[in-house]
């Protein structure tokens, strides 16, 4: 009896140890999966189950993936349709159409505007459980380039919310600006005159795009390519390009735009950086002098002593060029 019991006891213990070790093996499987993944970089596929509670709406598709767009130059707006599809197990008729909404936000865009679209979404297609909404998104010329997160949301009639922010909208850059006036004039002056400022400046620069021009390092800047202003009757005489200067303000004696600081001097056939100029982006239509605007003031620092009486212009040369970079 004791023998039998003893043999039988050993067998049970062995089976127990075997099962115990197998259990450890099974548990270790899960542990080593993560552990080896961490130390070797090897990956394991894990299947995640998604539970959708019956009766709560679910936005399962926005735009069919990533969308791209380019903005029109100011003052034009750019419209874009954004669609999203909602699933509601109890029936699409229980979705509250008036709550369908799209928000877009520029990723990493400090100071960028969050666009809230409410009321512009309409249901244009639906079946028993699905409804597709189309939203008209309006963007403006100063909206920054980059990836904008699209957030779509809707409520059902019991105020259960569905939300999806898995899609982005890529907006490209638009570099654009206007200058006005495009012709400068000077009051009458005599040969040998100094520090003569234009009488129809400032030249107004308006940023009609979504890229800021001008930074401290000069990698982005506002620059001017000057040419000699040549006599129309006798083209052997001219106002030399390097006798002109420009600045972003005026006033003082001599006028600051004539001050002769090397920063504001122009050169023939060479883009000279106007270091003080910054052309910000923004809604310039609000009418102030700074939003999306910059001003340039021009000066002829000296007219040659030998210049004869005649009209001087750029007609025989290329016009001057203002460039943003």
């Amino acid at each position: 009896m004791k023998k039998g019991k003893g043999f039988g006891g050993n067998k049970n213990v062995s089976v127990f140890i075997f099962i115990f070790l197998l259990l450890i093996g099974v548990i270790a499987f899960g542990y080593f999966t993560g552990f080896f993944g961490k130390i070797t970089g090897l990956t394991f596929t894990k299947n995640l189950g998604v539970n959708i509670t019956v009766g709560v709406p679910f936005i399962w598709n926005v735009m069919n993936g990533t969308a791209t767009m380019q903005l029109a130059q100011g003052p034009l707006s750019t419209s874009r349709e954004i669609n999203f599809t909602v699933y509601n197990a109890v029936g699409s008729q229980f979705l509250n159409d008036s709550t369908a909404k799209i928000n877009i936000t520029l990723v990493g865009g400090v100071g960028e505007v969050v666009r809230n679209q409410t009321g512009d979404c309409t249901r244009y297609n639906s079946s028993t459980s699905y409804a597709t909404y189309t939203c008209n998104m309006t963007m403006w010329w100063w909206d920054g380039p980059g990836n904008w997160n699209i957030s779509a949301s809707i409520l059902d009639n019991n105020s259960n919310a569905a939300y999806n922010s898995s899609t982005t909208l890529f907006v490209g850059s638009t570099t654009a600006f206007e200058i006005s006036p495009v012709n400068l004039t000077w009051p009458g002056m005599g040969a040998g005159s100094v520090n003569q400022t234009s009488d129809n400046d400032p030249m107004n620069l308006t940023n009609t795009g979504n890229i800021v021009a001008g930074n401290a390092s000069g990698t982005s800047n506002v620059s001017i390519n000057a040419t000699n202003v040549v006599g129309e009757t006798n083209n052997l005489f001219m106002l030399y390009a390097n006798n002109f200067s420009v600045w972003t303000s005026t006033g003082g004696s001599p006028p600051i735009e004539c001050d002769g600081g090397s920063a504001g001097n122009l050169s023939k056939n060479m883009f000279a950086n106007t270091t003080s100029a910054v052309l910000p982006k923004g809604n310039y239509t609000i009418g102030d002098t700074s939003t999306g605007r910059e001003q340039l003031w021009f000066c002829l620092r000296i007219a040659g002593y030998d210049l004869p009486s005649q009209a001087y212009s750029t007609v025989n040369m290329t016009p001057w060029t203002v460039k943003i970079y």
Partner: protein
Amino acid sequence: MKNANKIMVRTGILAGLIALICISNISAFAVSSDYWGGHSLQLNPGETKEFFLTLQNLVGTSDLRVKAIVTSGSAILKLADSSNVYLVPAGEKKNVNFKATMPIDSKPGQAYNVKIDFSEMRDSSSGEFGFGTAIGQNFDIITMLPPEQEPTGVNKNFILLIIIGIALIVITILILKKTKKRKPHKKIKSHKKRKR
């Protein structure tokens, strides 16, 4: 001095008249791009990509002629159109096509800065001190990093776990055998003790 005064008057009057005629003119065009200073084009070594930038003349009232020149990085970026002068009708857009080719020997992460100048081509009329506009586009073309090798992790780990499992089974068997061998000794000893 009298001569100087004559110069002054004639120049002043002529310039003033022209200014009154032209003062309302506005020069405006735009360049749209998927690439800019903060958003580079990425290519594999030896890869060629065709893309376009778009000229806009949507708010202007007259047609524009715009000249495009690659001013930096022309070794890898070239204009793909037959002419580099583009007529952009008022209210319309025009694509400017480019072809970028990454050198075959470029190293991963290597950046090539490219610059393209778009200049409005404008003629001056008599008496005008005229201005045009230009837009510079500047972005990097970067050699892509080699794609990370997709590890066949599941298979390798699966094999590893099988080995661990087999090792555990072997250890279990060994323990069982040792246990079996030890038991008879104990029994003999207990017999001896009883005899004493």
